[in-house]
């Protein structure tokens, strides 16, 4: 009962906040703050329920599957909700001072639309992580897409609008592919509920086609190579807090759905070919993204390409978790890595936003000495970079260690090479930026002072990315609740 209320608040709270912020633009910030606090409280309640009483199920309207919509809170869902709340909370703190210095009507407009869209995004994410059937996942995915796309367009400039259009023209057909897959699944199995599908699914041509369609669509939305081309322009031209939300959270939604599909609903259909194929694309993404990050002239583009690379690691989870022995290690590693990436990437984008506001540009070559003015931001960038490069004791390291252990245990040593090589590449592009922190240069232009909140939010998140490595046991224990059967878990 308590859990049901918590779940309802998690979805409806931010949604109500969004409606309120839309109707009363002046109160946008305050409503966002209230919504954020409410959502976090609801999350804590839900987490406590899940930890003490196990997986929680809520049947919306009392209708059970296959007719009704189920909301389910298991370990994975709670973890994703927690990451969302953390990042969204940080953005709630960061955004007001960020939008403040903009002059005139443009600023008021931008902030005015930011809050409803942001809260709407948060609500969509919460709904997505709690959904239990693949059609509801489609709906929440679309809602997420709408909010994300519109947030990118907030910047209003030519570059942002073009990037947004490109994003939309990839996102919408991808959703339709996914929906077509849902249709075929329904036609074959007469249900869309994940748990029921797990019982009914068998190998056959219809399900193969359906999964191919769904995976294709989700992979495009998750920006896996080669369908990643829309991500760098979109994430780079959006305002800094939006970029953070996009890289840390929005692309993780489709990834989450992929995990649910392949490990819970259709594990029988996961052949080595599929798993290795996804892993191979992930490996290419790591190399491609890192190399392009090294080639960028602008900081935000470097960070955006870094996202492409780091998302590649998440797809290494497929070949490694598909094998029974060591599969659980890989599952833990991939999800820990996801959490690490969310914190670190947010910190990076927020830092980039700080630099952009202080210096007026984000050219990497022009960053010399900037960090003497923004030492806190530089330190945040360093810590976040530590996690990205997988240096201990950060959570990035812990995630990579688990993936590495899994690949060595299974004899899939080629993934080990990819993981290790990727670490070095990440270190390379992080150092490319950080080395400018130490060069001795007199500043040409006087930088504008920044509100402390902006720098400190970035630092706290970066510290979390590192510190989570030391406190990983809690989240990992959480993941055991409701873990997929194929990994040795108790199942739904």
């Amino acid at each position, binding site marked *: 009962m308590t859990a049901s209320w918590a779940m309802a608040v998690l979805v409806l709270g931010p949604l109500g906040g969004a409606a309120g912020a839309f109707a009363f633009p002046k109160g946008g910030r305050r409503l966002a703050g209230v919504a954020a606090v409410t959502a976090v409280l609801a999350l804590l309640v839900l987490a406590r329920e899940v930890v003490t009483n196990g997986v929680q199920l809520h049947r919306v309207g009392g209708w059970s599957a296959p007719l009704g919509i189920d909301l389910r809170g298991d370990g994975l869902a709670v973890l994703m909700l927690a990451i969302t709340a953390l990042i969204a909370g940080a953005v709630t703190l960061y955004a007001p001072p960020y939008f403040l210095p903009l002059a005139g009507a443009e600023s008021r407009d931008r902030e005015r639309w930011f809050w409803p869209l942001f809260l709407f995004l948060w609500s969509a994410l919460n709904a997505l992580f709690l959904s239990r059937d693949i059609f509801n996942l489609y709906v929440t995915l679309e809602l997420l897409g709408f909010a994300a796309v519109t947030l990118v367009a907030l910047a209003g400039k030519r570059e942002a609008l073009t990037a947004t259009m490109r994003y939309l023209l990839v996102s919408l057909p991808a959703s339709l592919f996914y929906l077509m897959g849902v249709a075929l699944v329904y036609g074959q199995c007469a249900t869309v509920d994940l748990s029921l599908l797990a019982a009914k699914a068998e190998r056959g041509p219809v399900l193969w086609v359906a999964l191919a369609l769904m995976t294709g669509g989700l992979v495009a939305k998750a920006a896996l190579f080669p369908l990643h081309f829309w991500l760098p322009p979109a994430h780079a031209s959006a305002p800094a807090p939006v970029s953070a939300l996009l890289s840390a959270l929005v692309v993780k939604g489709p990834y989450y759905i992929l995990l649910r599909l392949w490990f819970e609903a259709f594990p029988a259909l996961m052949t080595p070919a599929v798993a290795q194929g996804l892993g191979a694309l992930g490996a290419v993404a790591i190399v491609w993204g890192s190399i392009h990050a090294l080639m960028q002239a602008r900081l935000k583009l470097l960070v955006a390409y870094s996202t492409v690379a780091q998302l590649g690691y998440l797809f290494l989870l497929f070949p490694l978790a598909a094998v029974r022995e060591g599969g659980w*290690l890989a599952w833990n590693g991939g999800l820990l890595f996801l959490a690490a990436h969310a914190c670190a990437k947010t910190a990076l984008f927020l830092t980039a936003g700080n630099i952009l506001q202080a210096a007026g540009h984000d050219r990497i070559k022009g960053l010399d000495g900037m960090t003497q003015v923004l030492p806190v931001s530089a330190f945040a960038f360093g810590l976040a970079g530590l996690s990205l490069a997988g*240096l*201990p004791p950060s959570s990035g390291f812990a995630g990579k260690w688990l993936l*590495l252990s899994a690949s060595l245990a299974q004899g899939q040593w080629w993934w080990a090479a990819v993981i290790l090589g990727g670490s070095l590449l990440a270190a390379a592009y992080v150092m490319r930026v950080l080395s400018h922190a*130490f060069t001795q240069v007199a500043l040409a232009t006087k930088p504008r002072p920044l509100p402390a909140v902006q720098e400190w939010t970035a630092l706290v998140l970066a510290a979390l990315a590192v510190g989570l490595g030391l406190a*990983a046991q809690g989240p990992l224990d959480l993941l055991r609740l409701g873990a997929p059967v194929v990994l040795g878990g108790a199942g739904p």
Partner: protein
Amino acid sequence: MNVHGWILPGILLSSFLTGMVIFFLSEESHRLRTWLNLLGAGVKLILVGALLQGIYHGQGYSLELDFLPGIPLALGADANSVLFVTLSTFLWFWTTLYAVGYLEDSPHRSRFFGFFSLCVTATTGIALAANLVTFLVFYELLTVSTYPLVVHRGTPEAMRGGRIYLAYTLGGGVVLLLAVAWLHQLAGPVMFRERGVIEGLVAAHRGELRVLFLLFMLGIGVKAALVPLHGWLPKAMVAPAPVSSLLHAVAVVKAGAFGIVRIVYDVYGVETAARLGVLAPLAFVAGATILYGSVLALFQDELKKRLAYSTVSQVSYIVLGAAILGPLATIGGLVHLVHQGIMKITLFFGAGNYAETLGVHRVSELNGVGRRMPLTTAAFTIAALGMIGVPPLAGYITKWYLKKGAITAGAEWVALVLALSSLLNAAYFLPILYRAWFKDPPAHWPHEHCFGRLETHWMLLAAPLVTAALVVWAGVFAESSFSPLAWVKLIAAREYGP
């Protein structure tokens, strides 16, 4: 964690907290910063003293924190740790004092001392690590905390040196990570234990263990400056002298050598390693490094570069000691951990004094410094003679044990290498001493600073004098029960004992 385990994180925190606070101090708070630095170093010294006291009375110390699934972060104080931690703590105190004096009027001192403290924290962590993963954590932390020190000056050469430094050390780190993960795959969580932990695996995984050994040596060998992985060391000379002394005497290179010691003694176990046949190649590489470093040192005119190549050579004595089976060689190698530390740091302190006081960076400019700066040059002389192996100084003790150990183990060629090395050491140190004492000084020094009555700033003078005194004491009083040698004999007894 047992009741007394709190002293271990205390030792780490004394420098970590100092560093964190110093980061936030403004540039202008000189006195506060100096006091904090010395306070942190002092507290650490006291805690390590208490630790020594406890170990001497048979007290055990350990602490475990949850980290990776099944693998905790484990701190402990076994005989090897205590050796290294005492060395680093003691030398840190004097290096801090030296650095404060050296960097007066330098920019970014808060940043420097912040990372300086972090570097010491990492080194202490390496010393106190009780399992392989904890070792790895602090090992990488050392890389991260020393980079800002290397590039401190911010000049293009400094940045270049820093890039090369990172390329080598991060590359080594990745290889080490692979080795550690792989070993854990085979053996489960690896705690350090005397005589090693992998004995049971030898039968089934002989080949793999050999490859793993190679990977370990590659990964750690970068920091230990084994040829051909030593390339970063001369380039890192762009760092300010206190950094060079720290890097070379105490932190990075010593940590690398310590790591090799740990792998050979406490992971593989020296007898198991000998049976696997991996010690011979290691001895060979160490021997090659000893000679290579010495030869290259001959051709360097820049004093710090000459000392850098000398370090490359001398640290391999430790590796050599580890690579030869037998308690005498072990004793020689381990005691050199301490001896090389104090000798080399004295030399670098001296080099720093010459640069800071007189603007002298090259050997060719050293004519007559003995007259201008007699105390510094006296310290330098003692350390140099120690390096050559002149009795009764510290270096002589090392070479004696290594030679004896090599002959006992049947590796006569090692004795030859050691003899050659001593000759080469003489070849590149004696000319310096000759120039310093017996040649006439030039009319003007390149860039002279006057410091009143003393030949140089008192902080720059105190440190080398203390460490030089230690060089003498470690040699002359080697057979007493308060010398590094006594402690090392204890370690060897435990490694080879019944």
